[in-house]
C-alpha cells in the first residue's frame, strides 16, 4: 500500500524509503558495480588480473618471510623473554601508532575527494536519500581505500609473529575483527575532521591542511631527534636498547586504540583469552561509537559544507609567469622551445594540484628528516660497517620511493594528456616532442630531490668521498632509467577512461611499471653500488684483521677485494649500458605506441 501525498490528482507520492531498505538499495548498488567490474576483469583482463594477483602474492610472501626472519632473529638474539616481549610490544605499538596517524590523514583526504569532489555525491544529494546514508556510502569506500595498504603490510607482520611465536588458534580468529575495528576508528576521526574543516573553514582548508602536514613533518623531526640524541649508551648495547625502549613508551598510552590492538593481539598470543576479548570488545565498541559520531556530524554538516565549498571564489592568478616558470625556462634553454613550453605547462599543473605535491612533500620530507638525524649516530660509532650498510640501505630506500613517485605521478601523465589531445593534436607539434618533454620533466624533477637526499644522507653518515660519488652516479642512473620506464610504459599502456591519476596508476600498466621499476632498481644497485660497499666492507675487514697480525682471513679478504673491484668496474659499465638501453628501448616502445594512438 502506498501512503503519502499525491503529486498530482490520482498520482501517489511515495513514502520515504525506511533506513533498512535504503541501506539494502545502496548495498545492492555496490554489489552490482563490483560484480560488473569483476566480470569484466575475468572476461577481458585475465592475464592482467593474474599478474596482479601473482605479484601481490610474491610481495606478501616476501614480506611474510622477512618479518618471520626478523621475529626468529629476535628470539635467538634476545635470550630474555621479558626483553623480547617488551621489544615486540614497543615495535608493534609504535608501528600501529604511526599507522593510526597516517590513517587519519589519508582518510581525511579520501573523504574530502569522495564527498566534495565526486560527481556521484552530487547525484546522490539530489535524490531523496538520507544525508547520513550518502555519507556512509562514501565513508565505506574511504575505509577500504585507506586501509588496504595496512592490510597488505600489516597482515604479514601479524601473521609472521603468530607463526614464529606458535600462538593459539584464537589469535588468528581475533586478528581480523581487531584489525577492522582498529582501522574504523582513525578513519572515522579523519572523516569528522574533514567535515568540520570544510564546514567551518572552506576557504582556509587548503592552507590549514598544508599547515597540518608541515606540523606533522616537524613533529616527526622533533620526535626522531628526541629518540636518537643524547643517548647515554653505545649503539646496539643493552643500555642503548633500554634507553630506546624508554623513549618509545609514548606508544603505550592506554587511551590509544593502537595500544588496545597491540595488547589485544599480544594477550591472545600469550593465551590470555579474557584480556584479549576485553580489548576486542573495547575496539569494537569504540569503532561503533566513532562511526555513529561521524554519521551524526555528517547529517548535521554535510549539505551545508557542500554548499559552502561551492561558494569558494577562485583565486586570481597573476598574468605574468611565476619565478619558478622563468627559472625552468632558463635552465631548459638547451631544449627546443615547444619542449620547454610543454615542461613549464606540466610544472604549473603539478604545483597547482595539492594532491600531487603534498604526497611528494610528505614522503621526501620525512626521508630528509630521517637522513638529517641519522648523523647523530655516526660520531659515536666504532662499527663503521654499520655506516656502510645504512648508507647503502638509504640509497635503496630513495630508489624505491622514486619508483613509487614515477608510478604515481609520471606514468598517468600520458593518459591524462589524452584528454587534451583535441588541443595538442591540432598544434604543429610532433608527437615525440610531447613524450620527450614528459621524459625531461620526469628526469629533472627526480634528479634534484633524489641526489640532494642521498647527498644529505652521505654527509650525515660521513662516508668517504668515493661512496658519495658512487651514490650520486647510481642516483643519476636510477632517475634517468625510472623516468624512461614510466614515460614509455605510460604511452604503451594508456588508460583513456579514467580521470583520476591514482586509478590510472593502480591499473595494469601502473602495476607493471612499479614491478619493472623495482627490478630496475635492484639490478642497477646490484651492479653499481653494492660491489663498492662490499669492497669497503672487505677493506675494513682487512684493516681490522691486520691489527692482530698475519691471519688466513687477510688473504681471503684481499682475494675478495679483487673480485669486488672487477665487479665494480664491470657493474658500473654494465649499469650505464643497462640504463641507456632500458631508457631508449622503453621510450621507443612507448613512442611507437603513442604515434599510433587514435582518439
Amino acid at each position, binding site marked *: 500500500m*502506498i501512503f503519502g*501525498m*499525491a*503529486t*498530482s*490528482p*490520482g*498520482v*501517489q*507520492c*511515495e*513514502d*520515504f*524509503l525506511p533506513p533498512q*531498505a*535504503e541501506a539494502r*538499495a545502496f548495498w*545492492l*548498488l555496490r554489489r*552490482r*558495480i563490483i560484480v*560488473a*567490474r569483476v566480470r*569484466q576483469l575475468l572476461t577481458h583482463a585475465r592475464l592482467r588480473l593474474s599478474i596482479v594477483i601473482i605479484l601481490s602474492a610474491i610481495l606478501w610472501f616476501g614480506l611474510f618471510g622477512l618479518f618471520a626472519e626478523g621475529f626468529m632473529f629476535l628470539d635467538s638474539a634476545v635470550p630474555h623473554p621479558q626483553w623480547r616481549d617488551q621489544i615486540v610490544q614497543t615495535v608493534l605499538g609504535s608501528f600501529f601508532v604511526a599507522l593510526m596517524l597516517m590513517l587519519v590523514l589519508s582518510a581525511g583526504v579520501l573523504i574530502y575527494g569522495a564527498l566534495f569532489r565526486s*560527481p*556521484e555525491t*552530487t*547525484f546522490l*544529494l*539530489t*535524490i*531523496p*536519500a*538520507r544525508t547520513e546514508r550518502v555519507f556512509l556510502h562514501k565513508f565505506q569506500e574511504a575505509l577500504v581505500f585507506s586501509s588496504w595498504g595496512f592490510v597488505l603490510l600489516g597482515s604479514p607482520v601479524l601473521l609472521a609473529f603468530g607463526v614464529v611465536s606458535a600462538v593459539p588458534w584464537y589469535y588468528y580468529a581475533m586478528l581480523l575483527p581487531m584489525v577492522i575495528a582498529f582501522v574504523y576508528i582513525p578513519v572515522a576521526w579523519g572523516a569528522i575532521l574533514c567535515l568540520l574543516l570544510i564546514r567551518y573553514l572552506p576557504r582556509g582548508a587548503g592552507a590549514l591542511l598544508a599547515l597540518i602536514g608541515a606540523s606533522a613533518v616537524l613533529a616527526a623531526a622533533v620526535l626522531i631527534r628526541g629518540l636518537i640524541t643524547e643517548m647515554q649508551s653505545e649503539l646496539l648495547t643493552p643500555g642503548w636498547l633500554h634507553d630506546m625502549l624508554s623513549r618509545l613508551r609514548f606508544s603505550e598510552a592506554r587511551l590509544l586504540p593502537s595500544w588496545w590492538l597491540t595488547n589485544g593481539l599480544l594477550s591472545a598470543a600469550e593465551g590470555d583469552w579474557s584480556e584479549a576479548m576485553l580489548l576486542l570488545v573495547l575496539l569494537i565498541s569504540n569503532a561503533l561509537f566513532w562511526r555513529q559520531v561521524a554519521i551524526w556530524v555528517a547529517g548535521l554538516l554535510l*549539505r*551545508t559544507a*557542500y*554548499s559552502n565549498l*561551492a*561558494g*569558494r*571564489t577562485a583565486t586570481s592568478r597573476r598574468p605574468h609567469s611565476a619565478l619558478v616558470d622563468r627559472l625552468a625556462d632558463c635552465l631548459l634553454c638547451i631544449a627546443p622551445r615547444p619542449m620547454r613550453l610543454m615542461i613549464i605547462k606540466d610544472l604549473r599543473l603539478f604545483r597547482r594540484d595539492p594532491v600531487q605535491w603534498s604526497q611528494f612533500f610528505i614522503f621526501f620530507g620525512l626521508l630528509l628528516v630521517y637522513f638529517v638525524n641519522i648523523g647523530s649516530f655516526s660520531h659515536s660509532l666504532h662499527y663503521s660497517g654499520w655506516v656502510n650498510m645504512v648508507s647503502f640501505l638509504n640509497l635503496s630506500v630513495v630508489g624505491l620511493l622514486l619508483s613509487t613517485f614515477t608510478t604515481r605521478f609520471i606514468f598517468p601523465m600520458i593518459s591524462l594528456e589524452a584528454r587534451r589531445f583535441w588541443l595538442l593534436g591540432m598544434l604543429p607539434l610532433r608527437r615525440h616532442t610531447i613524450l620527450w618533454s614528459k621524459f625531461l620533466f620526469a628526469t629533472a624533477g627526480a634528479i634534484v630531490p633524489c641526489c640532494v637526499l642521498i647527498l644529505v644522507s652521505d654527509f650525515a653518515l660521513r662516508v668517504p668521498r668515493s661512496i658519495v660519488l658512487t651514490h650520486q652516479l647510481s642516483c643519476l642512473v636510477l632517475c634517468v632509467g625510472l623516468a624512461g620506464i614510466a614515460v614509455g610504459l605510460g604511452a604503451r599502456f594508456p588508460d583513456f*577512461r579514467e580521470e583520476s591519476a591514482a586509478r590510472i596508476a593502480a591499473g595494469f600498466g601502473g602495476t607493471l611499471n612499479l614491478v619493472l621499476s623495482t627490478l630496475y632498481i635492484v639490478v642497477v644497485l646490484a651492479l653499481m653500488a653494492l660491489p663498492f660497499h662490499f669492497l669497503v666492507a672487505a677493506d675494513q675487514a682487512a684493516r681490522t684483521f691486520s691489527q692482530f697480525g698475519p691471519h688466513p682471513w687477510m688473504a681471503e679478504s684481499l682475494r675478495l677485494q679483487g673480485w669486488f673491484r672487477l665487479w665494480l668496474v664491470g657493474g658500473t659499465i654494465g649499469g650505464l649500458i643497462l640504463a641507456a638501453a632500458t631508457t631508449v628501448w622503453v621510450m621507443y616502445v612507448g613512442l611507437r605506441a603513442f604515434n599510433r594512438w587514435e582518439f
Partner: protein
Amino acid sequence: MIEFHNVTRRYGRKVAVADLSLSIGPGELFALLGPNGAGKTTTIKMLVGLLRPDGGTVRVCGRDVAQDIREASRMIGYVPDQPFLYDKLTGREFLEFVGQMRGLPPVVLAERIASQVCELELGDFLDELIETYSHGMRQRLVFAAAFLHDPPVLVIDEPLVGLDPRSSRLVKNLLRARTAAGASVLMSTHLLSLAEEIATRIGIVDRGRIKFLGTKAQLQQLLALPHTSLEQLFLQLTEGNHQPTRVQGDGVSPAASPAPAVDDGSGELSRASRADGQLAAHYSKPCNITADADPCDTTASDVPRQHRCADPAERRPAEDS
C-alpha cells in the same frame, strides 16, 4: 509550485543571484535564459538543494528546499547539464536504483520502467552497461530516471545538448506532455529556438538579476520590436541597459491548465499551446488528472497509478484538451 522569494547567492564577493523572486505554477514550462555566468545554473542548484541561498527562500510545492530537502526532492525530477551515471551498471539497474530510492514498490517500479523504456525508446540498450552508451543514450536514460516517479516539478539544465534530432523531438514532446498534464517545468537553455518552441513563459537573467519575465510577445512589445526573433530580442535586452521587467507583476504563474491559445501575431507560443492540447491527448495518463486541481493536494483520492505505452487506440481523451 516553484517559488523563489528574494533569493540571493554569493560566491565570495561576486553576487551570482541577486534578490530573485519568481513563481512557476502547474502546467507551466518556464525557460530560464541568460548569457554565460548569468546565474542560471546557480538558480537551478538552489532549487534542487545542492546550494543553499545566502538570503531568501526557495520552495517546491510549499516546502522549503533548504530546511526540508528530502521532502522537496521527492517532488522534483532533475536533469543536470552534466549528469552522473554509474558506468558499471546497466540502464535498467540504474533505473531500478533510482526507483527504489524514490520508494517505488517493485511492481509499480517495473511498470514505470517499462513505460519510460517505451516513451524514450531505451529498449535496444537498456540491459547493456552504461559505459557503452553514446551521449544521446545517456541523456535519454537520465530523462527516464527523472520522470520515473512522475514528479510534479521538473528541473532541466540544457536538455538537448548532444541529442540527435529524433531524440530532441522525443524530449520536446515529453516536456510538452508533462506540462500539459500539470507539471511545473523549469528549463535552463542556451537554445533560444527551443524556448520559442515549447516555453509558455520565459525569464531572462543577466549578472544575477532578472531582466525580463513574460512571453515572447510581451518582450517584443516591451522593446517595441514586433516580428523579431527571440535571439535578437535577447541580445537587445542583455546588451542594452533595460531595467528588469516583470510583465506579470509578481511573476504569478498562469492557471494550472495549459496556456490558452493567444493570437498575438507571432504564432510560435500559440502554436505550442494548441500542440499541448493535442499532445496531452496523445500521452494522457488514466489518472484522473483535472486541469484545475492542485497537483500537491494531499487530500486527493487513493487511485492506483497505471502507465501505458503510447497507443492512441488505448488512450482516453484528455480531460483538459
